[in-house]
């Protein structure tokens, strides 16, 4: 009986995958898919074929002014536009995740908690080469290192009547963050860590420039053991880097100079 159901599904699967199966046949197919992983996989493969077909459709130049109208629709001021040939650091996007955007009239901040971070921002602002933007740290850092979790194609797209919104998949694992503090409690960077699978760390750091300086990242785990994650180079005192790493809440990340001296550490929370 099951084999006959699978055979029937194989008949319907191409139309289902292309989103053009309707009525009773669609209900029949979906009912079978709910209990048959092999047929689900088959439909997913066919859905992939349908998606690849779209890549064969030739591109076409949109009408003049399209770009401006899109930006306007997104609520992004055309006045903010700048030449796109200017180099931009990837870390500008990622590292700025939790940085407040510079304001015309800076608001006083509580000195007790924010002083190290404010100092770091001030230092960066003096460099003037980077723009700090308010973004979602989790989303950006994950994307930069491993990609986001979850736009579901395939079975979610087999409704037959078109499903315009990209289906969402909630990433439940929270992103951890810690400010990298030097021995004299100055903020010299940030660490983000994601304790999911695979777990990873991403960081940016800015120190006094030393030519050819490289730093080593270690994670101090809850059981007291230390794991060396890797070494990366700084350019003009600045660098950003990410790698797979065993991390969890309450653990510490620390950076060592080439002599093995700890130059900064951060508690992840």
């Amino acid at each position: 009986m099951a084999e006959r159901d699978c055979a029937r599904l194989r008949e319907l699967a191409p139309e289902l995958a292309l989103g053009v199966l309707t009525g009773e046949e669609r209900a029949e197919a979906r009912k079978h898919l709910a209990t048959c992983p092999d047929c689900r996989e088959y439909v997913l493969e066919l859905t992939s074929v349908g998606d690849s077909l779209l890549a064969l459709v030739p591109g076409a130049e949109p009408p003049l002014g399209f770009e401006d109208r899109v930006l306007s629709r997104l609520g992004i001021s055309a006045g903010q536009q700048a030449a796109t040939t200017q180099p931009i650091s990837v870390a500008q996007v990622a590292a700025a995740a939790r940085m407040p955007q510079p304001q015309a009239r800076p608001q006083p901040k509580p000195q007790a908690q924010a002083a190290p971070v404010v100092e770091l921002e001030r230092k960066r602002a003096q460099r003037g080469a980077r723009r700090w933007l308010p973004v979602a740290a989790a989303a950006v850092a994950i994307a930069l290192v491993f990609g986001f979790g979850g736009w579901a194609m395939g079975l979610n797209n087999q409704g037959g009547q078109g499903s315009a919104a990209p289906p969402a998949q909630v990433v439940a694992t929270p992103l951890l963050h810690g400010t990298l503090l030097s021995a004299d409690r100055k903020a010299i960077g940030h660490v983000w860590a994601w304790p999911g699978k695979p777990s990873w760390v991403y960081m940016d750091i800015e120190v006094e420039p030393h030519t050819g300086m490289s730093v080593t990242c270690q994670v101090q785990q809850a059981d007291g053991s230390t794991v060396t994650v890797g070494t990366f180079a700084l350019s003009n005192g600045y660098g950003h880097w990410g790698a797979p790493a065993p991390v969890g809440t309450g653990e510490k990340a620390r950076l060592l100079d080439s002599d093995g001296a700890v130059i900064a550490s951060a508690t992840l929370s």
Partner: protein
Amino acid sequence: MHSEREAIPEPSSSVDDDVSRIGIPIERLADETLLAGLATGDAEIAVAFVRRFQRKVFGVAVAVLGDPVLAEDVAQQTFERAWQHAAVFDARRGSVAAWLTTIAHNLAIDMVRARRATPVDPAELSTLLGMMVDTPERQAIANEASGELHKAIATLPHDQARAVVMAGIYGMTGNEIADFEGIPLGTAKTRIRAAMTKLRASLVGKQANDG
């Protein structure tokens, strides 16, 4: 097979390179990085993102709708959806371009169905099919799965190729294809199924060879 889909791949070399470099031009950022940057609301990143994908997105929309005004609306909505949903993009499930074109396609099909418009002009179908089989952009797809699909669709019998384009691009049902072609419903369904089975075999075969 399923576990392979669930496996999280190593970061692509391009993303890895981006992370390790400093001061690279924004145009050279990986697609995924640019999409992530879109969430910042920064105009410079948004412009770069739109410029990179607008031809692809508008091309799909205008192919389905056949109307530049409606197609622009769909293309704009596509970028708006991408901006709103950037955080749920999953690179494991496909490229940014594939994600965007899928959104654009779904929106365009929704619009066609909502307007109950004639889904396709016979001349446009022939033109589109010809371009898909022998597109000047084939060099650009040479490294994608669609490159294999391009070869496969070119070898399909013409009636099967038409059927799969009508269903897969124009979103036409078996009944609509049967009416359009003046053939029995069963024949329309058979053509779709035969075409899709062959196209799937071309992609699965390539994956097997690559693996």
